[in-house]
């Protein structure tokens, strides 16, 4: 019975994190695509996913098209431990920021960071509540 509750809580935490990161990626997409266009952003997202996906394989199921970035098979993600989800997305966002800096130094990061920072704090809060 307790194990069942624990499992449910874990899923609930994973769901909340996935929801949070899913929204964050959408926000990043909206801001950056307005700055550099979709075709360049697709390229950057795919590179960052490929790089972060080497360590966090669940990220490889993220889909990127001209419409944006989204998680396909949300259900499969929720079996991933919350901490791994958090670290995986952190790695992905770090790679993205590295690419943004390589292209335009701080110009993109300055626009995106205000969106990212509160969300990362929120993710940490969710994890600490677990």
């Amino acid at each position, binding site marked *: 019975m307790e194990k069942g509750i624990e499992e449910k809580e874990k899923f609930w935490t994973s769901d909340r994190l996935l929801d949070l990161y899913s929204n964050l990626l959408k926000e990043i997409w909206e801001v950056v695509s*307005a*700055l*550099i*266009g979709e*075709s*360049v952003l*697709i*390229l950057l997202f795919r*590179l960052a996913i490929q790089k972060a996906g080497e360590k966090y394989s669940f990220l490889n199921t993220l889909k990127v098209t001209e419409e944006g970035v989204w998680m396909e098979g949300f259900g499969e993600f929720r079996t991933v431990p919350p901490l791994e989800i958090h670290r995986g997305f952190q790695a992905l966002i770090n790679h993205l920021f590295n*690419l943004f800096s*390589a*292209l*335009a*130094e701080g*110009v*993109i990061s*300055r*626009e995106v960071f205000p969106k990212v920072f509160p969300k990362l704090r929120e993710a940490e809060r969710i994890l600490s509540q677990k």
Partner: protein
Amino acid sequence: MRFIFKNLNILRSALNAINMSFEIKEMVESAGTHLPNLFEFSAFGLLWKETSTLYLYQEESCPPSFTQEVSQNMLRVLSLLGEEPKDLSQVALQVEKRRLRPDHMKMDPKATLKSYLTLPLTIEEEIFGCVSLNSDQSNAFDAEDLQFFSVIGYQMAATLKHFQRISSIKTIAIYDSLTNLYNRRYFEERLTGETQRAFYGGSPLSLIMIDIDHFKKINDTFGHTEGDKVLQEVAHLLKNSVRKKDTVARYGGEEFVLILPEAGLEEAHMIAERIRRLVEQTPLNIGRVQLNITVSLGISNFPIHRAKSKEELVRMADQALYEAKRAGRNRVCIFSGI
């Protein structure tokens, strides 16, 4: 608000110029001409992967160390984007220096790269290369600059994709198969672009029409195969007598035409005379004999002859050519307005 409208209009002109380009070099030049109206920069670069060529359009006081830094940064970005890493020695550098700043703002000989915007040229997930805007000033670019530059980059990528698609068809469509000069169709298109640039930009433009004297006689005496050789030889001499930015085309039959952008009447006359002398002094092997042929040339110029359209400019050069023929051939005539 007015400022935004003004910038959008400049952006529109830049995109139009890029879109109208026929060659990558022309595209870089068009961008280089328009970009200073939108951004303050020290160097603009386009790295084209297919030929490993880096086209740089930069401020004339740009020190070589800055050029090198810009080039290396572009190569670094391209390799970060998953492309095969390349050394600077593997890249052909084509540098065009222009005065982008007033004298009192010349670049320091020790200037270093302080700000840049570099974007991949990508369409349908294919990377053609990258474009870069560079400055020796810190924080030279902001988000609005990036937005504008990305639109320009996208247009360049689209144009490059277009170049790639049509490159084989283009060879057939724009070159004259006998002389390897541009054909009449290309000449017409090129002249449209050049007259627009001259008429609206106010820069001079000259046109030279050239006709081989007594060509019919050569054909009748030595046959058409030898006549074709004469056309090829003259085409070769013409190509070697003009500046890089000039266009040499076969207008039809034994008639050729030169478009000389930014050339005043005096310069055009000098080029025409040089061609006339060169043809006259170059013996051609026709059949079993050596023959010296001559050409007649007619010149028209904008703004001096006040042409209001490209057709008028052509008609004026043609009329001047007719005058040269009538006055005894083997001579250069300038349109006299009669």
